[in-house]
């Protein structure tokens, strides 16, 4: 520190001293000078008063709650239940396609012979086969029980199932679909 009896404490050192940032080795010299120098003691006192003035500045009251604004602006994270429902929804769609494939193919072959039909039917068949293939390979991986379940599903012809049987299943499927798409899980946020 650049300080003698004649030269006063640099302002930056007085600041560092009050901030407890002055090196320990420099502190004894500074304190010795302060003890013998009225002017530096007065400067230190003024600086201390300024510290107190700044640090006792009162907080102001927040006029509105920021919570709703922040929460509305946050990116949506999938609700944990919604994640399960999305998986269920996907499974339901694959089961539905597996069930509908034979009936759909039959219906398509009944369409009049046109260019559209000759293009559409093979395309739809391929698309459905690819999608249901996921289910089939999944069933193979799981084992014979899943294969039996798949075979019994294939034996059902949904177009010939009475509505009293099909209705509740359709209702359930709709509920899962709505929940999977979060229409039933929306909160006020």
């Amino acid at each position, binding site marked *: 520190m650049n300080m003698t009896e004649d030269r006063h404490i640099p302002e930056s050192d007085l600041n560092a001293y009050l901030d407890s940032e002055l090196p320990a080795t420099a502190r004894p010299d500074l304190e010795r000078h302060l003890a013998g120098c009225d002017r530096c003691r007065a400067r230190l006192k003024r600086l201390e008063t300024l510290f107190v003035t700044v640090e006792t500045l009162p907080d102001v*009251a927040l006029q509105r709650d920021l919570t709703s604004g922040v929460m509305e602006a946050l990116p949506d994270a999938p609700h944990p239940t919604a994640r399960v429902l999305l998986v269920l929804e996907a499974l339901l769609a694959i089961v539905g396609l597996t069930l509908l494939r034979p009936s759909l193919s039959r219906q398509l072959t009944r369409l009049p012979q046109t260019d559209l039909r000759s293009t559409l039917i093979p395309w739809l068949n391929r698309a459905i086969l690819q999608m249901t293939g996921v289910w089939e390979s999944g069933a193979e991986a799981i084992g014979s029980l899943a294969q039996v379940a798949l075979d019994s599903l294939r034996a059902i012809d949904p177009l010939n199932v009475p509505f009293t049987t099909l209705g509740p299943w359709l209702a359930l499927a709709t509920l899962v679909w709505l929940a999977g798409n979060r229409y039933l899980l929306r909160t006020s946020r």
Partner: protein
Amino acid sequence: MDEPSDRILVLRVRRGEVDAYGEVVRRYQSSVYNVCYRLLGERRESEDLAQDTFLRAFRRLDTYDVDRPFGPWIRRVAANLCLNHLNRARPTPYAFDESRDLPANAPSTDPAAVLERRTRAESVRAAILQLPPHYRAAIEYRHFQDLSYAEIAETMGLTISQVKTYLYRARRTLADHLSDEHD
């Protein structure tokens, strides 16, 4: 039942329970707003920046060390955001609205004492707001967030020597402004 700690809330948010962040905002909105208000001096702008602070903190929540207190971390995010904002924005005239910018907790009901404190607080705020943005930020970090010179240097991308210079110059300017007010 005890309220969940900040640590628990943050861990829940990180796991995907976004709603838990609402409680974090409720707990810290006032202190974050006050950081912004000290640095910006304008109510609406401070509310907007406080809101942006929580959004930025949410996006950077994975960088927060849950073993350290949350308050200092979010207040530092707020001050950084305000400093960036000040560096980008054009200087705007500063004006308080006495009836609006009331202290959060008035300790006395004596009208004369309340008026004196309010006048004094306004003088201090006005003096802080007359400082250049980087001096203002140094004062905020040191006096209101209790950061060391090394921490301020790291936060502001300065050397410790620059921090020391900023602080004593800022304080000298503050003292000049405040003594002018008294004269």
